[in-house]
């Protein structure tokens, strides 16, 4: 049944007839007496009204009618309005002579939208939001609703396309003037935020606004330092520079982050993406990246070489070649061991992260994630059987215990967990501690049996399972759904 038929009207009924029918039904279905009935009636009325207006035979009669609230908000302004001629009957005589100068009907000459957008963008670039707002308000063309809507749309589209440098306050003034800053204006708020950030950064990076930028990046001491840092970022990616700066990737990355408020993708095109990516990767402690390995390698090589050189120099002063060789070798070995420790530490961090992820996050190798601690304990038993009291046999349960405790701790539901800093150094302390407790004490008190050592990781692991019991997924089911 078509909406018009629902009102008991033929398909060629006009708006007047529809309104009469609606009014009659409305008297029986008042909004305060019958809310549901009224909602249905009103929805039908809106649809019937739309049908009426679509009807080509009646189009001329309904031109100039645009009432109704049923449609979705934020869509285009009524297209019919453009075709609606100014009402010739009543409107003209009411126009007083004094108002003739401010006639608001669509001007005969088409408004230069592009020119207006360019002007607005130029004015916004100056950074004075109040002046921009006043300039917009003073433009007589925008007393016309239709033109204002059109101009607002064109300007915002242009901003999205070109992303000209503009401070956030000016963008806000524009959106406010064109009434586009509200939730139903139909703009994706995230896209708008991105646009705002992007334009603001481009504006700040203009040479004229260096002092303001310097003030925002508080610890940045002078404009000259800022210039140097920016020049460094803007320069294309080159290996020679990477090697030269290998010691400070974290500082560069921090500068990028504060400069872009954590959104490096907002940087203008002239910044070399590859270089930025490289510096950010090199400073990212959560992942093992090529950049990070490379940086570590360079540092490590430099440390080892330096140690060796130092040894050589000391020996040369002592004039004892044998001693010099041994010293160089010794210092080199220290450098090498440091490097190994660093590698182990780097490998440990992602393992710890992966193992300590919350239960509901989809992890890689979920079964391994769940059973890593028991597996390690099993491995420890095996090693101990083959090489009793060896260092390896002790290291395995210590690592297992540590991972289990960390997991339990990280996944604990409370927000009030102790600060995590202690956990960064603790892995290095736990081995000597365990050795003193379990192995060296062996001679004194008879020591613990190996399985007793393994109760620590298993206990922590079991505790964690208990805490997480509400969240434990049936892993096989999830896997099946993923297929």
């Amino acid at each position: 049944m078509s909406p018009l038929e629902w009102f008991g009207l033929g398909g060629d009924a006009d708006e007047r007839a529809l309104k009469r029918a609606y009014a009659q039904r409305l008297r029986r279905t008042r909004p305060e007496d019958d809310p549901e009935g009224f909602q249905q009636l009103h929805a039908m009325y809106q649809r019937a009204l739309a049908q009426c207006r679509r009807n080509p035979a009646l189009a001329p009669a309904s031109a100039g009618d645009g009432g109704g609230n049923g449609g979705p908000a934020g869509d285009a302004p009524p297209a019919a309005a453009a075709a609606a001629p100014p009402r010739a009957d009543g409107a003209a005589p009411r126009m007083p002579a004094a108002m003739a100068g401010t006639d608001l009907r669509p001007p005969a000459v088409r408004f230069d939208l592009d020119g207006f957008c360019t002007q607005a963008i130029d004015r916004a670039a100056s950074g004075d939001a109040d002046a921009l707002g006043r300039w917009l308000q003073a433009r007589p063309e925008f007393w016309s609703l239709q033109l204002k809507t059109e101009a607002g749309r064109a300007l915002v589209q242009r901003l999205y396309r070109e992303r000209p440098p503009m401070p956030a306050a000016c963008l806000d003034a524009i959106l406010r003037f064109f009434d586009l800053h509200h939730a139903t204006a139909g703009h994706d708020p995230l896209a708008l935020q991105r646009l705002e950030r992007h334009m603001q950064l481009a504006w700040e990076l203009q040479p004229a606004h260096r002092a303001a930028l310097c003030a925002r990046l508080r610890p940045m001491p002078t404009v000259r330092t800022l210039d140097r840092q920016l020049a460094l970022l803007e320069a294309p990616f080159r290996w020679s520079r990477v090697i030269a700066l290998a010691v400070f990737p974290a500082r560069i990355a921090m500068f990028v982050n504060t400069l872009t408020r954590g959104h490096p993708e907002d940087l203008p095109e002239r910044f070399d993406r590859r270089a930025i990516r490289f510096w950010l990767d090199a400073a990212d402690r959560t992942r093992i990246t090529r950049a990070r390995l490379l940086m570590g390698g360079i540092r490590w090589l430099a440390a080892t070489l330096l140690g060796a050189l130092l040894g050589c120099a000391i020996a040369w002063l002592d004039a004892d070649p044998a001693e010099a060789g041994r010293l160089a070798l010794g210092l080199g070995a220290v450098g090498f061991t440091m490097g190994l420790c660093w590698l182990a530490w780097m490998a440990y961090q992602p393992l710890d992260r992966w193992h300590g992820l919350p239960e509901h996050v989809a992890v890689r190798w979920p079964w391994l994630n769940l059973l890593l601690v028991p597996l390690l304990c099993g491995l420890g038993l095996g090693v101990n059987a083959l090489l009793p009291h060896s260092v390896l046999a002790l290291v395995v349960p210590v690592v297992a215990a540590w991972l289990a405790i960390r997991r339990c701790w990280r996944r604990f539901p409370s927000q009030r967990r102790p600060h995590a800093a202690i956990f960064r150094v603790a892995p290095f302390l736990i081995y000597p501690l365990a050795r003193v407790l379990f192995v060296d004490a062996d001679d004194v008190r008879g020591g613990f049996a190996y399985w007793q050592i393994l109760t620590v990781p298993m206990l922590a692991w079991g505790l964690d399972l208990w805490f997480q019991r509400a969240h434990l997924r049936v892993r096989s089911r999830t896997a099946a759904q993923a297929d």
Partner: protein
Amino acid sequence: MIVGIDLGTTHSLIGIYADDGPRLFPNPLGDLLTPSVVGVDDDGHVLVGQAARDRMVSHPQQAVAAFKRWMGTDRETRLGRRTFRPEELSALVLRALVADAEAALGGRVAEAVISVPAYFSDAQRKATRAAGELAGIRVERLINEPTAAALAYGLQERPDGSRFLVFDLGGGTFDVSVLEMFEGVVEVHASAGDNFLGGEDFLDALEAACLADLGLAPDALDAPQRGQLRRRLETAKRALSSEEEVRVECRLGERAIDWRIDQQRFAHLVEPLLQRMRAPLERAMRDARLQPEQLDEIVLVGGASRMPLVARLVSRMFGRLPLRHVHPDQAIALGACVAAGMKARDRRLEEMVLTDVCPYTLGTEVARRDEQGRPQSGFFHPIIQRNSVVPTSREDTFWPVQPGQSGIVLQVYQGESPLVANNIKLGELKVPVDPRLPPEQNAVDVRFTYDVNGVLQVEAAVRATGKRHELVLERNPGLLDPRQIRERLAALAELKVHPRAKQENVALLARAERLYEEHLHAREQLQQWIARFRAALETQDELLIREHRREFGAALDTLEPA
């Protein structure tokens, strides 16, 4: 008997839908407009209306005005020995109005329809209802002021099949509504407004300019002097509507003030205020999906709309002169009377049906994923869009952001900003979901239902389990609960009020005291007159008092030609 009340920022009116159509009741002084001012006199009696308004000049600490702007807030005002919330102050005005109606009708009035600005928020509407309860009347309905004005206009002109815009610039609030009338149906298409824009702001602009010209800091004048200056400027503002240039001359303490302002300067001063009016007008037109040519009439109401500047703004925007068939001060009250008649199912109004809209957007907070897929919270997701016809009911579906969430919190907001931080929070509903299910299977259907009385009901149903949760937002945080209302009602009942018969005398004395402050040269004379009138009051001889009152009033009129 249901009365209709216009509870305005500066003036209030009361009336009824009588046999011969809407009729307004005068207060004891014979005026239809009662100033919305509350004060206390020296022996602790509460004064409402003109007497309190005069007292604002002579004793600024003992009277308060424009409290409608504080409705829905916790702000308390000290008057005499106790403090009052804005609801209580409004309730005192309502009581005075109801007493006028009861005196005119000779019976008890227990129910009322009260008009509120269309753009009043949920909290402000609830505060208005609470004020009604505190005044001892049941508020049958709140009607939007522009809608009320449209009812009055519609009844008077019977414009069939026409669309018009009601432009309501009152003392403290600005409202716009776009309506259509056909076959006895009054259909509101859209409302928009600004709750902090009204005649008072024009006066503020004038005062700021005057003080700046005289080289005075805003706090250089003490309260009585400021009250006096504002009164003079108010008169000047009114005069500027008809005269090219106005001169303000008065003595404030030691200072003699002589200040001139012409229309052009005034227009320049209030230009920012006029610009602020554009946004609601444009928004209402856009929401109604209308172009200016498609409007048949523009109706101006509200006292401040008398300024020619306002008419000029309207003509500039709509290309035609606004209509002035209805009385700008009374239109809303007359409309409220019509609404009261409709509520009382008056036979002559049964053909009329009114459909109104919800002027603001209602929705909840959501998180959105940015380009890196990280969830960002704090975004407003509209469910009932502004200017939806009420009653309305809309449903939307939400999912948990993260896997393993044990519940979702539906934060209910009212406002237009895309960020919830800039909107008004109405309440929240916690909906537990099964954390073991992946988010896409954890859908929660949320339904917002908004009824004609402005009560919002939020229902949530978890799709997986079919469990339902409900939240009815009847009381907002910061507003009075029923127990507090009962307590406050009892406390208000203890306040002393002058008997109706004596109110004219009280008002006359208050006026004389104000004139005493304002006219330095006539102080001795005034003192004598006041003493003589007080002596007459002491005699309690009704005839003598009436005689004296007439003489005293006439004497005061010579000082202050109307």
